């Protein structure tokens, strides 16, 4: 009698164990996949924050150049500021809305200047581990590429430009981008007569 009961109980426990292991395995799989996705999201969010700061820096660099050009010691005329490829943003500026000129500006140098991105392909930003800064003079490549374009606004009397700073990076098989747009006006003296 005792033996009979024991065998019956043993059988039940085996089925029960199988079911339990199945449920357990499912939940572990769920945990692992959620953790993996969480880690991926973490990396994505970190990169997105870095990209958004780099993109903001791009906008601010162009604005800084505009503001320096307005200063009395430079007082560069607006059209020279836009078209001068040596000192100002001529490499970034397309004279038409459809233009494809693009440039990159190194924020880590004291004298800002814009360089041409040949065929619209800008170099990858370098990352310096020691100072935690991004610049183009560093050999170690980061994953970020920053493209700055400056285009005129249609019907803007050539007094207004749209600055677009795009930072792109790839993670896994996807390419992500952050883009900030900023409108700059002609602040040069004397004010234009409209």
């Amino acid at each position, binding site marked *: 009698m005792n033996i009979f009961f024991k065998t019956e109980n043993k059988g039940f426990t085996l089925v029960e164990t199988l079911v*339990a292991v199945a449920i357990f395995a499912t939940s572990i799989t769920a945990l692992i996949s*959620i953790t993996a996705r*969480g880690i991926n999201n973490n990396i994505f969010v970190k990169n*997105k*924050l870095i990209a958004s700061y780099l993109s903001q820096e791009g906008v601010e660099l162009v604005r800084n150049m505009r503001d320096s050009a307005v200063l009395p010691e430079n007082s560069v005329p607006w059209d020279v500021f836009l078209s001068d490829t040596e000192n100002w943003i001529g490499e970034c500026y397309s004279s038409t809305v459809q233009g494809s000129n693009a440039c990159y500006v190194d924020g880590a140098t004291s004298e800002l200047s814009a360089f041409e991105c040949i065929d619209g392909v800008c170099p990858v930003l370098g990352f310096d581990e020691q100072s935690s800064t991004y610049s183009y003079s560093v050999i170690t490549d980061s994953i970020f590429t920053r493209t700055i374009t400056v285009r005129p606004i*249609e019907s803007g009397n050539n007094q207004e430009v*749209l600055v677009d700073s795009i930072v792109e990076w790839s993670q896994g098989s996807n390419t992500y981008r952050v883009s900030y747009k900023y409108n700059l006006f002609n602040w040069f003296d004397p004010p234009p007569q*409209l």
Partner: protein
Amino acid sequence: MKTLNKNQKGFVALFTVLLVSVILSMAIGIASISLKEIVLSSSASEGSRAFYAADSGIECALYYDRVNSTEGAFFAGNFMCNGNPPINPLEGADFESPETYSFEIPFGADDELCASIILKRQITGLGYSTLIESKGSNIPCGETSPKKVERSVRVTY
């Protein structure tokens, strides 16, 4: 012996359910943390887009106040920012003293951003005092969305 065996019958299932609930709560915790991270980082980057729209709006208002205003009045002529004329001017705007004017201007390459601008000017003992307030948002003008983020810039002179 019989009762003990009976009690042990459900033990493995109970134990699994307990373990699974612990594991699932861990999983839900991780998922909610990473979801919050995405929401936070999105709000940070959308906030910057809105800020640049607000700053563009301030540039626009300051520029046209500089080149296009006559003594004490805003924008003597027509003006356009980002290729768009001002829209949604405030009904019944008060043009007496203090002079107030408000409008919205779409910004961004495809008008996907909006700046809503309020101008106030009044006569003081020293001449005129001006206040420009620009509220930038990350969605097009006239639209509402739960994802709307606003950043505001105020200039006085």
